[in-house]
């Protein structure tokens, strides 16, 4: 029965192909010259270059964090190329996009053609270091929504970018945030004006294609008063024997009564079963509930990457603001994940909710790390956290590291945790009712994650269910 389980959880990665496309790759290495080169390739204004240089100089003073519960050989930051772009200029219309790229994203199931788009999801597609296309841009512009690549935003909306860039995640925040701020190449930008409820889900699809390059993108989402947006993020990468570094920064700002829902399905290449290759996913994501009654909700389904290190967080500054974090992290083989959230309560009557579901299979190591902090002025703050772990097989581990810091007596903080195991007994129980191991595992996993999946937008929930299926289903040995 154990071997059956192993056969099921050892499914090959289906997005591991590489697109043969000529790329403009900057030589490996990191110094101010490289940063100036990236900035000049993007024709950036001086203020943007200044930001990068300041970040770089700060980065030089920092040391790589060693506190996460993950192990990997030291990264040689001089052995990475910090910019790689397909050698085709960004085109005005879809018809002009390189057909090779179109085929790549078609293969990944990402509709770049607006007519073919499912249920009207606007997509910004990022290939290695650059955004290759953004769909539904004009349609969204009609209601005042700006949805474009980060590079375009720097050019076309410098006043907004300048105001918010680094306002939630400063370049001095941590080692990888500083690195990203220095070398980031593209990403998505989205601005929802006052009173507008975004009529469609916005989404970015990230694809790493080049073996030697890292991906460093930034996402900035601003929701003005009384606005609402649902944002989706997806990621895949080809299968290489080497490790690629992905260090993104995501900043969200929600003003009075604004509502941002950010959903991620992360399926970067995880390395092979012996832990060779795979993406190092070191990401800083943070949302600022700046206005009263604002709400930021993170939902993540983390299934890929050799190493995941990310803590999508909420700073609850506005009174009555709400932060939510719903997470499913699946690790298999030699994968390592140290993920969770930070809920920082600063305003009065702020509320946060954390639901984390970790699934460990193979030899993987899956840790939840979360901080709930209640500041001294945060009267009547409330938090509820629930962290559940599930083990498949007995060669892996799950850990929970909850940190609670409360400086205000009126706070209510609740933490619940559980660990369960898909055991032989359960599988035999299913089998004795005619249900095979594969279906049993999928049913148990789907049941386990359902509290999180109900928070995903419909399309994404279907996608994520399929993805977990891919990771856990297959020929029963």
């Amino acid at each position, binding site marked *: *029965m154990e071997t059956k389980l192993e056969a099921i959880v050892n499914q090959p990665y289906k997005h591991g192909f590489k697109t043969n496309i000529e790329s403009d790759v900057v030589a490996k290495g990191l110094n101010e010259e490289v940063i100036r080169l990236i900035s000049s390739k993007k024709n950036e204004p001086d203020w943007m270059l200044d930001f990068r240089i300041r970040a770089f100089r700060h980065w030089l003073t920092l040391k790589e964090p060693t506190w996460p519960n993950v192990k990997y050989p030291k990264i040689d930051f001089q052995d990475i190329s910090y910019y790689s772009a397909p050698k085709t200029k960004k085109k005005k219309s879809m018809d002009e996009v390189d057909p090779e790229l179109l085929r790549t994203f078609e293969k990944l199931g990402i509709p770049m053609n607006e007519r073919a788009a499912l249920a009207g999801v606007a997509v910004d597609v990022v290939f290695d270091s650059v955004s290759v296309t953004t769909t539904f841009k004009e349609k969204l512009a009609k209601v005042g929504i700006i949805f474009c690549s980060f590079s375009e935003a720097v050019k076309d909306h410098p006043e907004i970018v300048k105001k918010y860039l680094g306002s939630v995640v400063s370049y001095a925040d941590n080692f990888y945030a500083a690195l990203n701020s220095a070398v980031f190449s593209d990403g998505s930008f989205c601005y929802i004006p006052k009173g507008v409820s975004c009529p469609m889900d916005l989404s970015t699809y990230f694809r790493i294609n080049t073996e030697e390059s890292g991906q460093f993108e930034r996402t900035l989402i601003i929701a003005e008063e009384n606005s609402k947006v649902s944002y989706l993020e997806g990621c895949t990468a080809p299968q290489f024997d080497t490790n690629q570094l992905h260090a993104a920064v995501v900043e969200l700002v929600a003003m009075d009564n604004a509502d941002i829902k950010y959903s991620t399905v992360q399926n970067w290449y995880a390395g092979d079963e012996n832990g060779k290759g795979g993406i190092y996913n070191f990401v800083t994501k943070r949302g600022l509930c700046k206005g009263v009654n604002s709400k930021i909700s993170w939902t993540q389904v983390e299934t890929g990457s050799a190493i995941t290190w990310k803590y999508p967080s909420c700073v609850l500054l506005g009174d009555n603001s709400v932060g939510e974090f719903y997470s499913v992290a699946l690790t298999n083989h030699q994968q390592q994940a140290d993920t969770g959230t930070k809920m920082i309560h600063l305003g009065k009557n702020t509320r946060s909710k954390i639901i984390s579901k970790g699934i460990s299979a193979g030899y993987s190591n899956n840790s939840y790390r979360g901080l709930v902090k209640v500041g001294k002025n945060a009267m009547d703050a409330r938090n509820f956290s629930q962290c559940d772990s599930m083990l498949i097989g007995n060669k892996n581990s799950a850990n929970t590291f909850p940190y609670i810091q409360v400086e205000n007596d009126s706070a209510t903080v609740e933490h619940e945790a559980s660990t*369960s195991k898909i*055991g*032989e*007994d*359960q599988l*035999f*129980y*299913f*089998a*004795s*009712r*005619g*249900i*095979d191991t594969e*279906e049993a595992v999928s*049913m*148990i996993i*789907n*049941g*386990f*994650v*359902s509290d999180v999946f109900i928070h995903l937008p419909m399309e994404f929930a279907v996608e994520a269910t399929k993805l977990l299926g891919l990771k856990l289903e297959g020929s029963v040995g």
Partner: protein
Amino acid sequence: MRNTNGGNPLVHIDGLATEIEGREILKDLTLSVFPGEIHAIMGPNGSGKSTFAKVLAGHPSYEVTKGGITFSGIDVLDLSPEERAREGIFMGFQYPVEIPGVTNSSFLRLAFNTAQSARGEDELDPIEFDDYLQDKLKMLEISSDFLDRSVNGGFSGGEKKRNEILQMAVLEPKLAILDETDSGLDIDALRVVSQGVNKLANNDNAIILITHYQRLLNYIKPDFVHVMHEGNIVKTGNEKLAQELEEKGYDWILDET
């Protein structure tokens, strides 16, 4: 006594021996069960009763070292537990496991539809299945909020056993092996569960009851009572044998053999 069919046995166990981790549990066990029959297997702790149930259901931890099992004429030792279930073998667990996060209703529906497909019949959608289920719930005096709870999650011992019988009612197996279904039941639950089993018994199926105590047999009348000792059936009789066991214990039989 119900109709005892003179034709082919539903299940025939022939000289069965099994091991777990090199330890022999069942030794040369032979038993035939015909459609329409109810057999009770009794015996002291450690006599191999539960092993027998698990081996019939195909538990992977037990290795069959000798003998065979034919069910409806087919050799089931080659079949996986799920294939045996689809052929119509059902085991009611002594200790049903909890499956957090999976609702009872979806579990029952998946099990039912798997059986339907195996029989070459149409699967039922959730609404059709709910209709089908309501009758079964009524029969077993189970309230429908049972269905929204996770499988055996936080169930009392009695509720778990009742849930086993509900699964049996839903799957309508040809052969049900009920492993100590009466243990942990209070008198009311025992009555309801027994009535359920009686309603499910017919001339086409067979039931093997594994029990410690005679009291279950006040509610379900067996055609045969077998006494198991050290992995083999050492005595076979009728209801009266069970009463005798209740009065005198097992020692006299063990001395006899």
